[in-house]
């Protein structure tokens, strides 16, 4: 959903696995929907890790662990690899996450998150390792993501890093504008290009 980003301060949900692919984020059988109801996708986020085949919750999966919650998902490196399905970003947004922190994102998924007003924050492996340790020690530990200043802070340790976000996308996120709004204003330039 289009929303304006500013400063987000929240507890985190840790998922310390590497190479989490979009088939795990949302399995293919949930891609048959022809609408974009984020709540439907959110309910099925990490479906096969989160629920048994009979629909009962798997107790050992982090989303079913009452100690953890918040608007920030913290994941191992190479998050969102594989299929280009934007449904994965819809599921993450639909569950209520606004930020995903990892040391590395797959390209297509990263764009999909940005296009759905979920902010992918790339941190160093050291920052990520420390953050996992912090959350492990205290599930109520908080992180601050400051979009205007492009910084991410582990409030338990005070350690802070800056993260990349290009000026155009930052403007879009802070003003709830998407790429199509922009492109629709460029018709003349596109037609001029076509005549070349």
């Amino acid at each position, binding site marked *: 959903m289009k929303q304006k980003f500013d400063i987000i301060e929240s507890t985190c949900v840790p998922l*310390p*696995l*590497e*190479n989490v*692919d979009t*088939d*795990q984020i949302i*399995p*293919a*059988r949930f*891609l*048959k929907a*022809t*609408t*974009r109801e984020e709540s439907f996708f959110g309910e099925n986020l990490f479906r*096969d890790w989160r629920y048994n*085949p009979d629909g009962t919750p798997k107790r050992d999966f982090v989303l079913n662990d009452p100690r953890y919650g918040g608007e920030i998902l913290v994941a*191992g*490196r*190479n998050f969102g*690899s*594989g*299929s*280009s*399905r*934007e*449904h994965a*970003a819809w599921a993450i947004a639909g569950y209520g996450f606004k930020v995903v922190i990892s040391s*590395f994102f*797959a*390209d*297509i998924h990263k*764009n*999909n998150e940005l*296009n*759905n007003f979920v902010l992918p924050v790339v941190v160093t*492996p050291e920052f990520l*390792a420390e953050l996992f340790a912090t959350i492990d020690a205290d599930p109520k530990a908080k992180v601050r993501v400051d979009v205007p200043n492009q910084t991410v802070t582990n409030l338990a340790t005070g350690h802070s890093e800056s993260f990349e976000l*290009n*000026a*155009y*996308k930052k*403007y879009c996120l802070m003003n709830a504008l*998407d*790429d*199509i709004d*922009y*492109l*629709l204003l*460029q*018709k003349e*330039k*596109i037609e001029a*290009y*076509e005549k070349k």
Partner: protein
Amino acid sequence: MNTLFDKIWDAHVVQHVEGGPDQLYIDRLYCHEVTSPQAFDGLRERGIGCFRPDRIFCMPDHNTPTEGQDKPIEDPVSRKQVDALAANAAEFGLTHFGMNDPDNGIIHVVGPEKALSLPGMTIVCGDSHTSTHGAVGAVAFGIGTSEVEMVMASQCILQAKPKSMRIRIEGELGDGVTAKDMALFLMSRLTTSGATGYFVEYAGSAVRALSMEGRLTLCNLSIEMGARGGFIAPDETTFAYLKGREYAPKGEEWDKAVEAWKQLRSDEDAVFDREIVFDAAEIAPMITYGTNPGMGIAVNGYIPTLDDISSEGCQSFCKALQYMGFRPGEMLLGKPVDYVFLGACTNGRIEDFRAFASIAAGRHKAPGVVAWLVPGSWKVRRQIEEEGLDKVLEAAGFEIRQPGCSACLAMNPDKIPAGKYCVSTSNRNFEGRQGPGSRTLLASPLTAAAAAVTGFITDPRLLP
């Protein structure tokens, strides 16, 4: 001193967005039924149409059943999605090759086959395997549904320019080693994120020697190394493949096009952000043992041990082996196989069926193995029949099904049951990819055929 990637990309830049990405003009948008309905909804909500409908081609492939395509799809949810694509294409004035139409098939098989995909083009689709079309010398990449909507609305996409990488594979491939093995080998060396952020140009004598079908397989799997896309500079193999196909230029236009396409190559002194060279002779028939495509080994090799894995990777590695029911350090050769799947945008082309038939000929499907042989398009299926491969395969106990994505991601009825092992020529071995609980071992059509006739994992080189 430009790379071919620079040349094609830069020629399509409408403008650089200040402080941001490039606005890139797109020559072809392909749509399938799964990742397009919400984009069409978006256009309706904004009250706009498609900006350049003649550049957009649609076909259902993910949900299509592989038998009984003359009848309506049984699963009402799948049927609704396939029907939605047909209705949307009609409403927005787009070309649509419907299910059971002689022109239908997997979009990444049909695009090159009809020469809709041509050298020098920019091509996108809401599907990560769009990289396949790079085999004709195009810049082709997968995108999300919001980006599909962008292209529908403006024929452009906002995209940061990826870095460039050249992977050269020099020398000759050994007997029984295919383009699929080449790709699985690259993934095992580079990992599934080794090429993230890059667009890959494949080069070197072993790549040049590949047929178009082999090149399509290699480029198809670029995304499995994390690359945005991969391509091969067009050459005589490319031109011979495209000539005379439905959407290829004709007559004088063809000659002019070929002259222009011959210029599509990286300059001698082009500088790549990263360049890697491999020796083709190092590559063996490959198979995967884990739950991402980078977890591959030679078919006669051993699964890594915990000593080979980094400490951060241990949890993922152990989770993968537990899921697959394998132990560190063991061999896969001789392990029993329940299912074999030949097909997908990776290996659903005529050459793949020829390869499979070369091993099946004079042998018989092992009892207890369920084999699904799914052509990538109706055209491939017609060619199988014209070449008599269907007779060879039927005599060996195999049947040819109707085209679609099928068991690659199990959105249609072709699902591998939980706990069962499938040697699959598709592109992903993720947990549950071929059905909840399914266990996938990725391999070439030759290795898949060897498993199908013996009933266990077999080195295809031992079945001459």
